[in-house]
C-alpha cells in the first residue's frame, strides 16, 4: 500500500473510523445514563491493531488480529474493533450503571487523538502538494 500518500494513510483513516465509533459508543452510554439495567459499552482496538501492524512492512507481514484467526496478510480495511460490554452491574437504587466521569475522560482522550490524526493527515497532504508545486519550478 506504499503509494504517493505514504504507507500509513489507509491505516490512519481506519483508526479515525474506529475513534469515531468509540465516540458513538460514548454518546450511546451517556444517552442511556438514566436507564436502569443498561450496561455501559466500550470499544477496544488499540492492542489488536498494535499486534496487527507489528511488522515493519504491511504488505508482506503475516499478521493476526485475533488469536483464533488463520494467519494472513493484514488488511486495515476490514478490521473492526471489539465491543466490550461491562459486567452487569448490581442495581442499587440511585446508582448509575454509566460512569459519567469515565465516559467524559474517554471522550476527551478520544477526540484529542482524533484531532491529532487529522493534523497528521493534513500535513501529509500539504507535503505532497508542496512537492508537486516546488517540482514544477
Amino acid at each position, binding site marked *: 500500500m506504499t503509494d504517493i500518500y505514504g504507507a500509513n494513510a489507509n491505516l490512519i483513516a481506519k483508526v479515525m473510523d474506529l475513534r469515531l465509533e468509540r465516540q458513538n459508543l460514548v454518546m450511546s452510554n451517556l*444517552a442511556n445514563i438514566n436507564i436502569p439495567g443498561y450496561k455501559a459499552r466500550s470499544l477496544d482496538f488499540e492492542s489488536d491493531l498494535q499486534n496487527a501492524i507489528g511488522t515493519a512492512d504491511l504488505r508482506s507481514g503475516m499478521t493476526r488480529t485475533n488469536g483464533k484467526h488463520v494467519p494472513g496478510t493484514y488488511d486495515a480495511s476490514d478490521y473492526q474493533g471489539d465491543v466490550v460490554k461491562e459486567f452487569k452491574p448490581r442495581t442499587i437504587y440511585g446508582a448509575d450503571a454509566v460512569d459519567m466521569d469515565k465516559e467524559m475522560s474517554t471522550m476527551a482522550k478520544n*477526540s484529542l487523538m*482524533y484531532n491529532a490524526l487529522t493534523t497528521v493527515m493534513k500535513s501529509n497532504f500539504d507535503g505532497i502538494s508542496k512537492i508537486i508545486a516546488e517540482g514544477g519550478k
Partner: protein
Amino acid sequence: MDFMTALDIGGSALSAQRTYMNVISMNLANAKTTRTANGQGPYQRKSVALESTPATPFGKAMDSALSQELQGVRVTGIVNDNRPTKQVYEPGHPDADANGFVQYPDINVVEEMTNMIQASRGYEANTTTISTIKAMYNKALEIGR
C-alpha cells in the same frame, strides 16, 4: 456508522431529558392542585418511562456487530405515580369533603429538585458529547482544505 448516527443518539438523549424536565416542572406547578380538568380529584404526580432503542434501523444494523451496540433513548410515556394523597384539614376549602379534609397531591419539593438536577446534568453531558462530535467533524473537514 457516521457522524449523523452520533448526532441522532445525542439528540434522542436531549429530547428525553427535556421531556423529563417538563414533567418535573408540571409536578412542581401542580403541587397544590386539588382539582384536575376532568373533575377527578387532586393532581397525580407524573414520571417518565424511558427505554433504550437501537440507534440504527435493523436492516443497517446487520452490517456490523458494532452498530447493534449503539443505543439511543426514547420516552415510552408519561406514567402516573400512584402514591396516596395527603389529607389536610381545611373546612373552608371548596374541595373539602364532608369531614373538612382536602386531598392534596403528595409532591415533595426536595425530591423534585433532586430529579431536576439529575435531568439537567444528563442534558449537559449530552450537549458536551454533541459539541465534541461537531468539533471532530470540523477537524475532519479541515483535512480537505
